[in-house]
């Protein structure tokens, strides 16, 4: 057994870990990254990327299905479409494979050594990796914990049999005729919507009183409406009780105290994710915790000198781009640069139908932070481009300080709005005021005009009413 010593060891090659390792390699830091599975982490392999592939396929299929129903105002009609999910899955795997090998290539190009295996801390500077060829000990000056998160399991519905997590849902060989989704967070809604569009009979249950309870009601209303349109049944205020005795239905307690059986071929559990703090020897180094998460400061330092933590294991929001930004920052800090976390916003996107973007403070959040605010909202039904896309649901809403019009937040819900998230983030990071948005020429006809119009409305002079 040969030991390795390096300056930086990164545990986990997800969007936090691999970005950190690549940046460190570019900066000339002698770096090793340990990953038990394929590079890319949850995001690339079993999360963001495969789910978006599936959502796209489902959307395409639903579009053709509408044409086939002779229902299209566009005058397009086609023969009844057919979906071979296994082929879809192959295509999806192709994308994941390309991206994963892309990450491997980038790591190699940056001179980062990848060790495949499960890492475990011996002490704060020594990690033992269980590899295929036996244990490997790595000693490092700096260690970055980027172990990510796992899907939360419900005690009454342990994974196995018909009970699946998002990982299995993204690899189903066939569309389940009856799918029950437990949890109406963004993952449950994204996958539930996709399977509904692919022909599954989908029922979603949510313990709270509306879908996407972490977003404000104004933003989630178009989502709830679209779910109804595509035939998804939603039970809010409902509790999953367990499978029926013969395993072909989910027993739930409804909001009015009744027990109901929801027939199900598959039960998808999407009740959230928990930080991956088990199985890699956290107890050996005894870091300070922040609830279930590892406590970090504004430079991602843990309570142990030389040990950093980034990504989902450090807390909300559990988003790939947050992890990447942290990873890049930590690599630069280790290289000796002065860096600290000073982001104004971490945009969040739900690839629901329609899509949601939230960047910065919501009106409620801004008020809670003590700001007097002005808001401006432009619905997409006033936007030409939205009409030509056959989807006028949703709006863009701006939140700004009442005194100096500094933008505090931008939220939007609407078709393809995820692509506008960058303009929201840039505006917030640059410290834009309502006037900056209002006087910037926004190309016509695009969805982005709704942003400009929302700014005009917040300033009290709407240009088209």
């Amino acid at each position, binding site marked *: 057994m040969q030991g390795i010593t390096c300056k930086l060891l990164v545990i986990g090659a997800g969007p936090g870990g691999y970005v950190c390792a690549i940046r460190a390699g570019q900066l000339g830091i002698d770096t090793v990254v340990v990953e038990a599975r394929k590079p890319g982490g949850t995001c690339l392999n079993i999360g963001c990327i495969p789910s978006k592939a599936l959502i796209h396929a489902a959307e395409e299929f639903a579009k053709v299905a509408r044409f086939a129903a002779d229902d299209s105002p566009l005058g397009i009609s086609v023969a009844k479409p057919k979906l071979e999910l296994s082929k879809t899955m192959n295509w999806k795997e192709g994308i994941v494979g390309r991206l994963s090998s892309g990450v491997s290539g980038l790591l190699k190009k940056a001179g980062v050594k990848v060790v495949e295996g499960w890492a475990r801390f011996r002490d704060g500077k020594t990690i033992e990796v269980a590899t295929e060829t036996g244990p490997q000990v790595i000693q490092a000056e700096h260690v970055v914990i980027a172990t990510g998160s796992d899907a939360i399991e419900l005690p009454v519905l342990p994974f196995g049999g018909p009970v699946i997590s998002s990982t299995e849902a993204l690899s189903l060989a066939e569309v389940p005729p009856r799918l029950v989704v437990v949890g109406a967070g963004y993952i449950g809604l994204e996958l539930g919507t996709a399977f509904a569009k692919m022909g599954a009979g989908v029922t979603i249950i949510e313990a709270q009183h509306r879908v996407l309870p972490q977003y404000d009601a104004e933003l989630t209303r178009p989502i709830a409406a679209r779910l109804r349109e595509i035939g998804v049944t939603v039970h809010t205020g409902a509790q999953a009780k367990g499978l029926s005795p013969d395993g072909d239905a989910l027993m739930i307690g409804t909001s009015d105290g009744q027990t109901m059986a929801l027939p199900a071929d598959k039960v998808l559990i999407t009740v959230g994710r928990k930080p991956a703090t088990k199985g890699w020897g956290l107890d050996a180094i005894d870091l300070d915790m922040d609830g279930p998460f590892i406590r970090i400061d504004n430079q991602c330092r843990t309570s142990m000198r030389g040990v950093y933590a980034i990504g989902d294991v450090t807390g909300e929001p559990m988003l790939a781009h947050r992890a990447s930004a942290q990873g890049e920052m930590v690599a630069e800090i280790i290289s000796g640069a002065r860096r600290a976390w*000073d982001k104004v916003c971490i945009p969040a996107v739900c690839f629901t139908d329609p899509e949601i973007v939230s960047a910065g403070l919501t009106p409620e959040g801004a008020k809670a932070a003590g700001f007097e605010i002005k808001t401006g909202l432009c619905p997409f039904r006033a936007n030409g481009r939205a009409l030509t896309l056959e989807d006028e649901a949703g709006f863009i809403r701006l939140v700004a*300080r009442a005194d100096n019009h500094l933008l505090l937040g931008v939220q939007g819900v609407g078709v393809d709005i995820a692509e506008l998230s960058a303009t929201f983030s840039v505006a917030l990071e640059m*410290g834009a005021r309502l006037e*900056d948005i209002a006087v910037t020429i926004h190309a016509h006809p695009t969805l982005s005009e709704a942003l400009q119009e929302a700014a005009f409305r917040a300033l009290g002079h709407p240009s088209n009413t």
Partner: protein
Amino acid sequence: MAEHVIRLPDVGEGVAEAELVEWHVKIGDLVRADATLAAVMTDKATVEIPSPISGEIVWLGAEVGDVVAVGSDLVRLRAPGDGKTPTAIGEQTSPQDAPAAEGTEPTLTPEPRMAGSEKRAEASPVSNTSRPAPTASRQQFLHGPPRPEGEKPIAAPAVRLRAREAGVDLRQVPGTGPAGRITHEDLDAFFSQGPTSARTPILRARTSVEAIKVTGLRRRVAEKMALSSSRIPHITYVEEVDVTGLEALREALNSRERKAQPRLTLLPFLMRAMVRAIEDQPKLNSVFDDVERVIHQHAGVNIGIATQTPAGLMVPVVRNVEALDVWGCAAEIARLAEAARAGTATREELSGSTITITSLGAMGGLVTTPIINHPEVAIIGVNKMMMRPVWDGSAFIPRKMMNLSSSFDHRVVDGWDAAMFVQRIKALLETPALIFIEG
């Protein structure tokens, strides 16, 4: 609305002009009767000019530093009321006496008063509401409004990164952009000012020059010093004096319980010693008129005591020291120093010296080169007293030693005479009993 002219009144016997040292009002101010308009300085006294009537200041006749002749127009003031006749306020007539006939100018005479000698009229300018509130200065605009405490600084990511790398805390950088946004230019400005960041102290050269007008007492001192230094060839003679015995005596006298007894400093003893030395060399107690080439040798010893006041250097004079004992000297020094500092010393108390002492006490240093108080011929400078080791022939012993640095007008005082004078003072101070023994 009648307009009145206020002229510079007679501010002292034989004074034909005075220097304007301070305006208490500006154009547009509303003043009440008896409010102070200006301060002027004659020889060495400052005189305040009160307003004889109430009204609005419409014109000021001089700038600070100007020398104004008595009787010339100082202020024009518009008085409220129905007076259709323009009135001038000047010379020696009072409004009651002035005939209201057309063409004649009723005048008012302000009653000049010694600066500080009475309570100043409360809030001389009543208000200046007729003037617009001052707008934010350009400087303020450039620096942006101050960021409220605890507010997060707003800056683009590139600005934040640049600040971070330079070790600058953006909370300390004023932002001039919209909503107080910190721009790259703001950072440049902050860097060029020299940040106050403790982590990276940057030393910067300062290039500004401030023009400070030399006026009033400062101008008088400057002129006097230039005159003395350019006209008088100084000879400075320094000698050390053992004041151990004198200090013991002084301490003994001060420790005696006596009511209303002024605390004795070294100066009364020095003054008395000078009187004794002058008895031997009367020509050092002289005023030299070098234009007429006449030395006025005074019988009375009037000693000027150079005194630092808030306004600058002043020299109050203790008159006829030959007729005062040490207690009398001490009392007179205390009284005059207080008057000089308070600005209430009279012209008589500030002139007429025949010889001068300059002493900075504990700040006296080892040696000074005193400038003679023109037109006198001698000045005695007192340096700091300190314990020094002195060789007594067999051992070093600690003695309280003090230097005297004295300057003489070499045109009329030879080096020999200067040395004799100082040696005589030294001998008297080292054996202080001699000061008090006649003959």
